[in-house]
């Protein structure tokens, strides 16, 4: 720690560990926490559903489908070398495409079906459908590729190189910026479509922009770190309760901060300090997030009427 602060390289190995592994991992955790939480917040506001989030609505499953098609499906066409060469970008584009696909499916349904619970159930069904397709890919794919995909799907914050961070950082900043730009519209969407339209909002345009923001945020995190669950649902609720507000001018910065902090904490827990074991990050966030979601459901019995 002192060597980090003083800048003296007493121990070259420690410094290398911190600069090349721990620091990128911490930055990834903060970015992923912020991105997933903000995309969860946006989904909860748009769908006016407290249980909405990138994971529940199948956006992460869509991203897995994209990655599965890339890693498992095209592995026979692409040489190992070309995957490695295009890797950074192809994986992220595949995850984006997959998540955007599911998102627009849900959007199309939500234009026809007004009932929030129906949309939520359809989101879960889309998620299951994509998982089924992913299973088919897994069944027919090569062993080494299968392992690469399974490891990706368990979620990890530690696999990013500096170069990959250089791609992730601008993506997340762009997604968050879009979210900040739409804070006013998100506030108006709280009251539902009728009120939003009577305030002069172009609903279609706003929804599409917010869906793009969400798929950039959730899609790129899922592409690099794998699907990380429950952060996106739980953090916005924690922030709403802490701030006692539904105003997105406060909620968005609050969610970014809280999301970053909570995923960083989850990562520390996942390292199991004092031991050599590292747990999959997904398990830790689920074990932290599920009690919060249960508490939300029990506290507000009318699930369809909160957000």
């Amino acid at each position: 720690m002192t060597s980090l602060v003083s800048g003296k390289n007493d121990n070259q190995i420690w410094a290398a560990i911190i600069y090349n592994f721990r620091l990128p991992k911490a930055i990834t955790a903060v970015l992923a926490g912020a991105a997933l939480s903000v995309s969860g917040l946006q989904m909860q506001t748009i769908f006016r559903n407290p249980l909405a989030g990138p994971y529940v609505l199948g956006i992460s499953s869509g991203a897995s489908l994209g990655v599965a098609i890339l890693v498992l499906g095209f592995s026979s066409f692409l040489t190992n070398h070309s995957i490695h060469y295009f890797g950074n970008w192809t994986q992220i584009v595949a995850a984006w495409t997959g998540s955007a696909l599911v998102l627009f499916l849900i959007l199309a349904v939500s234009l026809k079906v007004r009932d929030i619970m129906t949309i939520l159930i359809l989101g879960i069904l889309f998620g299951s459908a994509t998982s089924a397709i992913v299973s088919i890919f897994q069944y027919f794919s090569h062993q080494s590729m299968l392992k690469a995909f399974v490891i990706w799907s368990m979620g990890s914050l530690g696999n990013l190189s500096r170069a990959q961070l250089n791609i992730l950082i601008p993506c997340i900043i762009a997604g968050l910026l879009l979210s900040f730009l739409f804070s006013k519209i998100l506030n108006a969407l709280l009251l539902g479509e009728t009120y939003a339209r009577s305030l002069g909002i172009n609903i279609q345009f706003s929804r599409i922009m917010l869906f793009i923001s969400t798929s950039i945020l959730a899609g790129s995190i899922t592409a690099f770190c794998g699907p990380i669950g429950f952060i996106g649902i739980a953090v916005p609720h924690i922030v709403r309760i802490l701030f006692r507000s539904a105003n997105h001018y406060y909620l968005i910065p609050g969610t970014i901060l809280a999301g970053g902090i909570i995923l960083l904490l989850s990562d520390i827990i996942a390292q199991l300090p004092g031991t050599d074991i590292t747990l999959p990050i997904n398990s830790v966030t689920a074990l932290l997030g599920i009690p919060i979601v249960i508490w939300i459901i029990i506290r507000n019995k009318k699930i369809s009427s909160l957000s």
Partner: protein
Amino acid sequence: MSDIQNILSIKDLTIGYLSSGNALQPVFKSINLKAKKGENIAIIGRNGIGKSTLLRTVAGLQKPLDGKVYIKDYDIKHYKKQEFARLISFVSTEIIRVSNLKLFDLVALGRFPHTGWIGKLNEDDYKIINDSIYQVGIYNLKNKVLNEMSDGERQRAMIARALAQDTEIIILDEPTAFLDLPNRYEIIRLLNELTVNKGKTIIFSSHDLNITLQEADKVWLMGKNEIVEGAPEDLIINKDIYRLFDNSSLDFNIEKGDFRLTRKKVNKIVLSGSGIMQFWTRRALERIGYEVCDEDKNSTCIQISEQNNHTVWIIMKKGDKIICNSIYELTLHLRRI
């Protein structure tokens, strides 16, 4: 007076929906109506006749199937979204439940069409928001969360939001639904105040016929096939009001100005007495199926009188005398006969 400009005029309007396959599903045809600045207009009509559809069409939330809606002599379809949002605000029947939404933040949403992209509020905006909350009489709840309010307070909050939008026309879909009687009167009185003090034009739908006929400046009455407009008194005098009760057991009493269920009156009864006691006793008798008439030797007779500073009802039938201490007791005895 007729030279006051019509702020809103509806010409040959057909309202309704487009079903799948773009087939027209008209709800109501050939609507022609007008509204002047500062009028408090009530839409009345049976359930499902198309009151909400009409309001939503005028508020620009759904497209007319045919015909035109003009605001200040411009067809509403030519207005830009933001421009239109500064002309008409809308309060729906939907109960908004957003956890942790503060009253101030809710009302601040009304400033939406007046602020820039980022939505920063300036001093004027703050003043308008605070004034709006004050106007509807819930300033003490300014920092309260919407979920902790009663239905009446929440409806006031939604009206405050519409006020903050600072539009000349406010449209409300059943603003008195879900409210108790005092709250209904107060909400309608609030709407009246807004027309008088602020010059707002208010159009609302309602099922509260008694309140509406007393308080509205003008009524748009949606009958079975046509819609008529006029002062509530005109509609009563012209008997247009009866269009509301085709085949229903409700009847309008033109002398008293209220609504009663039409009842089968089987037995005749004679009632003596006067004043308030006579009025309410008569109501009770009519409720249990008696027709009150003048002297009739064969009928039962009820006499209201005082005994030891206490009102009693005496049932006299063929020489028998039963003394009752309350109207309830009276009705029990009469049912037994």
